[in-house]
């Protein structure tokens, strides 16, 4: 059984297909056709809804793509759709602003935009200046495609609706809803796995471990932004799913000496917040990782476990010498991230085994770390090349500065995220100058023979990887040189 709120109405479902999506549920079962299907792959945002869950205070409102969200994942949450925003005849401020700014033309993407704008309305930091607000607005809207307007009026509408101190009919009921959500999610947790036969919702790490052993073929559902594509794009059926969302241990972050232990189900959004100060470079990458909808759902563990050659976090984690904590039953083991990937979408995970945490070393003095993502489009695009470079330095006997260690990893360049070992070998113990960098860049050709595909040709990938190494050198040797198109006015 799962329980959730559809706006204010409690829904109890005894039986449903494990791979039934929220979008299908809304349109076919509830007749709520305001939420649209544009692509059924989480790339266009027309199906955006908001999912609210209890926070320290009140509720968190998170936009998600309903086309790639499985219904069972709503357990203990509030689902808000475009039909819920107006209070009777009174439009929500984001709706009114959209009309006032002529932000809709064909109107098909509009409900999705409205829901992203609603999430933004709830999250916009009070008192932020216009530039800051504009940047956040872009982040919240980057996962919504509009083919008619050219975006300007939509951005204006979003900015206008978030200008004033904000209160809406959701704020009034917020605490009541939060209490109700805590109540309904706990209701069935009698130390037992809840859900339905095909959709299991373990409540703790030990429950998860035993469920995984019992059902080694069941699929683990973290954010599901990749898993759901097997259903909506490859037309497969998923008979059995284990939801990770309720396993609190998987969402914890601990400091363990010089490293952070990040629970595998920590969302990418929370990773961004967590690493903003320690690793601003990762934070910046995460702002271009999928879209807000995807980051709200996607998890750090999911981005590793799906073993895609184009996941953006694995190169970062490999370059930073991160490790994974794996668990099978009661046994745990720790492995290097780079050892985790075996072949295209193949990992060392044994049946019944899962990633419980990521062990990320903290930055240290003298470390030079950068991560670069190159794609056709700035927003919500998959990397043609993602490159993470981590160098550290010491002084040799003649007191010259030399590279003491080099860890470089790339995504999009091979069947798995991979280190550039020949390139690293040239950098190690060498001077950090243009000629070393040139040699190291050439060595990348030994390390990788990428493929040509819809995103880029092999030749482009190699040249870009080489040039990113040069960009790294420029950025650390002459900071008067501008190297990022996104930072130019």
């Amino acid at each position, binding site marked *: 059984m799962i329980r959730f709120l559809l706006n204010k109405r409690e829904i109890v479902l005894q039986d449903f297909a494990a791979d039934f999506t929220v979008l299908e549920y809304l349109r076919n079962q509830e007749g709520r056709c305001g939420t649209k299907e544009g692509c059924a792959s989480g790339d266009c945002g027309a199906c955006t809804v908001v999912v609210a869950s209890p926070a320290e205070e009140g509720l968190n409102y998170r936009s998600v793509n309903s086309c790639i969200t499985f219904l069972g994942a709503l357990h203990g949450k509030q689902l808000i759709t475009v039909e819920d925003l107006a209070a009777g005849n009174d439009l929500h401020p984001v*709706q009114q602003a959209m009309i006032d700014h002529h932000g809709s033309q064909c109107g098909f993407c509009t409900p999705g935009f409205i829901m992203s704008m609603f999430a933004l309305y709830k999250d916009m930091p009070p008192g932020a200046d216009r530039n800051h607000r504009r940047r956040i607005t872009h982040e919240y809207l980057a996962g919504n495609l509009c083919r008619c307007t050219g975006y300007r009026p939509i951005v204006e509408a979003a900015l206008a609706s978030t200008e004033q101190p904000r209160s809406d009919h959701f704020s009034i009921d917020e605490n009541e809803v939060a209490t109700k959500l805590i109540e309904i999610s706990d209701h069935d947790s009698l130390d037992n796995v809840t859900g339905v036969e095909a959709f299991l919702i373990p409540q703790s790490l030990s429950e998860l471990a035993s469920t995984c052993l019992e059902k080694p073929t069941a699929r683990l559902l973290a954010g599901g932004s990749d898993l759901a594509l097997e259903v909506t794009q490859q037309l497969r059926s998923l008979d059995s799913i284990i939801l990770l969302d309720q396993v609190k241990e998987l969402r914890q972050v601990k400091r363990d000496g010089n490293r952070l232990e990040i629970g595998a189900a920590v969302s990418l959004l929370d990773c961004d917040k967590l690493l903003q100060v320690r690793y601003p470079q990762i934070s910046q990458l995460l702002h271009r990782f999928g879209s807000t909808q995807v980051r709200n759902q996607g998890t750090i563990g999911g981005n590793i476990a799906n073993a895609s050659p184009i996941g953006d976090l694995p190169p970062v984690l490999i370059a930073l010498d991160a490790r994974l904590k794996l668990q099978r039953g009661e046994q745990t083991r720790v492995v290097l991230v780079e050892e985790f990937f075996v072949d295209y979408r193949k990992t060392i995970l044994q049946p019944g085994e899962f990633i419980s945490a990521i062990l990320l070393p903290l930055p240290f003095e003298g470390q030079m770390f950068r991560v670069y993502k190159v794609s056709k489009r700035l927003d919500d695009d998959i990397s043609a090349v993602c490159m993470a470079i981590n160098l550290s330095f010491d002084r040799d006997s003649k007191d010259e500065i030399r590279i003491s260690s080099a860890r470089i990893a790339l995504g999009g360049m091979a069947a798995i995220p991979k280190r550039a070992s020949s390139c690293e070998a040239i950098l190690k113990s060498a001077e950090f100058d243009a000629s070393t960098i040139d040699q190291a860049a050439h060595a990348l050709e030994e390390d990788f023979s990428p493929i040509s595909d819809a995103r880029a040709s092999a030749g482009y990938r190699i040249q870009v990887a080489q040039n990113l190494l040069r960009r790294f050198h420029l950025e650390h040797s002459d900071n008067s040189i501008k190297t990022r198109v996104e930072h130019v006015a």
Partner: protein
Amino acid sequence: MLHSPSRIGTSMPHDSARKHVTGEAVYVDDQPEYAGQLYACVGGSRVAHGKLKSMNLEKVRQAQGVIDVITAADIPGQLDIGPVFPGDPLLVESEIEYLGQPLFAVLATSHELARRAVTLGVAEVEPLEPVLDLEQAIKQEFYVRPPHRMQRGDVDKALAGASRRFTGMLQVGGQEHFYLEGQASIAIPGEDGGVNILTSTQNPTEAQKLVAEVLGIPMNLVNAETRRMGGGFGGKETHGSPWSCIAAVFARRTGKVVSCRLSRRDDMVMTGKRHNFLNRYDVGFSEQGEITAISYLLAGQCGYSPDLSDAIVDRAMFHCDNAYYIPDVLIDGLRCKTHTVSNTAFRGFGGPQGVITMEAVIDQIAFNVTKDPLEIRKLNLYDTDKRNVTPYHQQIESYTVPAIIEQLENDSDYWRRREAVRQFNQSSPVLKKGLALTPVKFGISFTVSHLNQAGALVHVYTDGSIHLNHGGTEMGQGLMTKVAQIVAEEFQVNPSRVVVSATRTDKVPNTAPTAASSGTDINGMAALNAARTIKQRMVEFLAQQYKVEQKEIVFQNDQVSAGENMLTFEQAAKSAWLGRVSLSSTGFYKTPKIHYDRETASGRPFFYYANGAAVSEVVIDTLTGETRVLRADILHDVGNSINPAIDIGQVEGGYIQGLGWLTSEELKWDKEGRLLTDSPATYKIPAVSDAPEIFSVRLMENAPNSEPTIFRSKAVGEPPLMLAISAWCAIRDAVAAAGDYNTFPELHAPATPEQILQSVNGVRSR
């Protein structure tokens, strides 16, 4: 006396805006499900070219939820649904001509089950060598339609005598429409063997006609209805109809309501795109950069069938002069055939592929004579008295481009920014900036003359409410809002009195597609004529009733005065009804003055031209090819705007859509002819951060159309797309900077990061 607020020129919100933001606006797939409703899905070919020997569909029939399966043999009427020329079988009968071409269709109890079932079909195919490449088609003279030529003067002689001359080639990419709402149709079986079609189409009349032909029934048994589309952009002009036909066949076979909507991937694979072109030019010009002659060879990739390609390649030819006078000119246009999906209408309809080629030529002339491209542009503009004849012998009578450029040059601070860009580039080794101003002159009218007609139907009810229907369809462009404003203006009533209804072929018959930017021009005029007829009847009646002169009947402020008598509009309507006056009328309009003779390639294909210009400033990264548009300034001529907010929306949206076409939107096929970029994960239309941070769009003021169009407005749907060519030219300018302006960069479209990096490599290696 009170004055009515003007309804024309008012930025009323879109008539569906409130429904858009609340989710109440109903699209085809949002219709409530009928009892027993069934779902159709189409099974496509897995090879690009071959003879279809047989199909094994047993597993499909046995799949879960499957009710019915059809092949070409099951089509009761005509199989070919080619819109202008034959060549488009609804389902393949013998020869497969592209990978993905529909071979059979499945009907099941749900959309998902139908999709799963089609994957089980097996076709036995004798493979044939496909032609997949445009250059190969050009070489083999493999065409869907014969070439067409336009010429004026003696180009060979003029080229030979030119003091400077170059030849060149430009590849211009295609474009996927990516309307957010995919193709969708519902067929509801009716009495007498008829069917009612709810469909997302720009062309309900064609849906009606093709469904009738496919079913083998007369058109009067078929009604096609379109309330709104979630975007069209030309992609639902002819490519919306096949799905109506499939749904209709199943609906007649089963007696059930049938929905046929395409998944995004099927939509991207099975429906046509903007034509990619390979254009060659031989250009003669003076030492000052004044063009003396151009010989063009424009080759459009049409895909496997003619569809609309004749008119599309024609329009590329009509626009490869863009805004400039070419004294001696020859234009050959090829309609090349390949074994790929049939390319179709897309905003601009071939025009953009012509315009960009001319702008590329201008840039190269400027480079050649070492002048700023803007000077060369201004030097070569058409004039209205002397240098005023187009390659198709239409005279330029009224020309706003020079004034637009002059104003934009000042407003955008072009020359100061040109200097700033140069300075930036001197001190920035990695990032380079580029700047360009390009104009657009776009011919308005369907070049197929008979399409320039429209009908409307207006009813005034006894409570004073007004019902409006016309042949145009709403795809987001605000057509319904504008036409409602026009009718409200005629009756001098509040536009809220006018209810816009779905476009239906049983209300207004024999309509043209909503295309060629013509929607408001022709339907607005037809609706105005209908409203005028009713108004005149009311005037005549009220004059008689109140025994006053007709000129004393005045409609104003939702009221009608008859001499000293004041009536509300409701009272006037009711009183006319009591007097047995018909308050319903049709209206009709045909565009005057236009004609074109294909034999001589001359005439006046266009009623008038819509014009504009844009300045774009870009930055590129010479290490990665990444790019961004930093600022765009646009000045566009819409004549007297009927609704400035809607017009600005068209201009902004057109620019960004054009920017996508020329930068991030790249279509790729593999060697077997399979579309690789078949989803939004790999095909990237612009997203929010692609819109320039400084985006200034203005409409030209006090510029009524010199032709008597509806309230002297100008069409606005397509022309702004071509404003984005300024961004592409600016990218080339930035690449040139990477080579210290020593080499004219080779750059094709789209200028993806990869294309840009390759272009940078080119200028740096020399």
